[in-house]
């Protein structure tokens, strides 16, 4: 366990080096932004809309006192989507989607000697393979999360528009009230850290595969499990640091 963490750190030292060719790196970066980001837009949108809707319904059901204004529904949806649901839940989903993809891609390259082929050409394989993925995710995930927040709020609006639980006017007033910009900053810091966790851990797991196809599968499972655990752990640490 400790020696694994050590080799993770050593790998990261090799990842964060100057790329051999910036032109090639830029090309890879754009490709990874597409694969890791744009291709995750659909699932992000669907999950976010439903999440927003469910939070809205639950909050509305829980407000039975006439003293609490129904505007609170919109407020609660906004706060929980920004603070927790978008950055954390969506990052967990991405850990599953993106993490397994990265680990199996790099793991397959390892077992078919493609990584050895890179190395004997004189290329630094961790830098060539993992650096573009880490940087792409750290750039594109904040965009995904901001969009997710938007979709979450839209989900709540659908509930207002289609049920009698609360009115759209209540809802819109609620999501605009008592707004603190810092909550967005907090969410984006979390997102960037989670993006690093997902891509670096999955890259590490893929890079260290030994054996064949079965080990590639096992590595991709480990990538998802460890990224998820680390996301949850760092969610606690960052929340403690940034919100208290």
């Amino acid at each position: 366990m400790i020696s694994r963490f050590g080799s993770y750190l050593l790998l990261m030292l090799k990842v964060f080096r100057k790329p051999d060719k910036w032109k090639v790196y830029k090309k890879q970066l754009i490709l990874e932004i597409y694969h890791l980001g744009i291709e995750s837009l659909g699932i992000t949108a669907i999950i976010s809309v439903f999440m927003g809707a469910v939070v809205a319904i639950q909050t509305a059901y829980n407000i039975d006192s006439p003293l609490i204004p129904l505007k609170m529904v919109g407020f609660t949806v906004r706060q929980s989507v920004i603070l927790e649901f978008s950055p954390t839940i969506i990052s967990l989903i991405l850990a599953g989607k993106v993490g397994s993809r990265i680990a199996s891609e790099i793991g397959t390259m390892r077992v078919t000697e493609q990584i050895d082929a890179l190395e004997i050409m004189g290329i630094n394989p961790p830098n060539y393979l993992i650096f573009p993925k880490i940087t792409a995710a750290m750039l594109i995930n904040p965009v995904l999360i901001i969009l997710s927040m938007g979709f979450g709020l839209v989900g709540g609006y659908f509930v207002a528009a289609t049920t009698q639980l609360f009115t759209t006017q209540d809802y819109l007033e609620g999501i605009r009230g008592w707004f603190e910009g810092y909550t967005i900053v907090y969410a984006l810091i979390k997102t960037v850290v989670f993006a690093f966790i997902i891509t670096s851990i999955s890259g590490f797991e893929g890079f260290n595969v030994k054996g064949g196809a079965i080990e590639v599968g096992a590595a991709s499972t480990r990538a998802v499990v460890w990224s998820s655990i680390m996301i949850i752990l760092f969610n606690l640490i960052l929340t403690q640091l940034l919100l208290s």
Partner: protein
Amino acid sequence: MIEGKNIFKSFGDHLVLKDISVKFEKGKTNLIIGQSGSGKTVLMKCLIGLYEADKGQILFDDRNFSEMSFNERKSIRNELGMLFQGGALFDSMTVEDNVMFPLTMFTDQSKEEKIERVNFCLKWVNLENANKLFPSELSGGMIKRVAIARAISMNPQYLFCDEPNSGLDPQTAGVIDELIQRLTEEFNMTTVVNTHDMNSVIKIGDTISFIYKGELWWVGDKNQVLSSDNQELNDFVFATELTKRLKK
């Protein structure tokens, strides 16, 4: 010339290479032969630095490779091509991009120059119209040939081939052998080939190093290999029914 001096390598407490010293000459096809598991691949990977030898020296034309850092090794690696046992083509790239890859990474050639070089290499391996195919669309023999084209795209001085014709029919295997031999002579490369195919041994073995259980057991050439009185070598050479009958 490539020289390995007193190379030892173990994995855990399994000693795979025991005090191996080899010399591979320029302009010649140098073979490493031996049974499956004797340590051929490990030796080759030690020579090019994919495994660090526990002890010993590796010299590329008197440049001490074993003592260099990753960055110092880069210059030698740019002069070195390798054909892996499974080809190791990049799945995500077309044949053309695979062969072009080293050029893109290490030269400042224009697109036209690179394509010209790619086509030159593909012509050498007789794959003139395969530029846009992906590795998954190629046969085993084609994969090997593209891998050779990629290995020679930087005009290497040293060429390493790990079992270039394993898994191929005898005819295709012969084509690959000839190709390696012609390339070696034409470009005056130092070529090292791992093989346990007796056809290759007697056809292209300018020098032959026989590895037995991790030790260098016998050194010679294709004319001597059939008439040696070394017991272990004979067991290896005359292992198949065909060779046994030919001996009689």
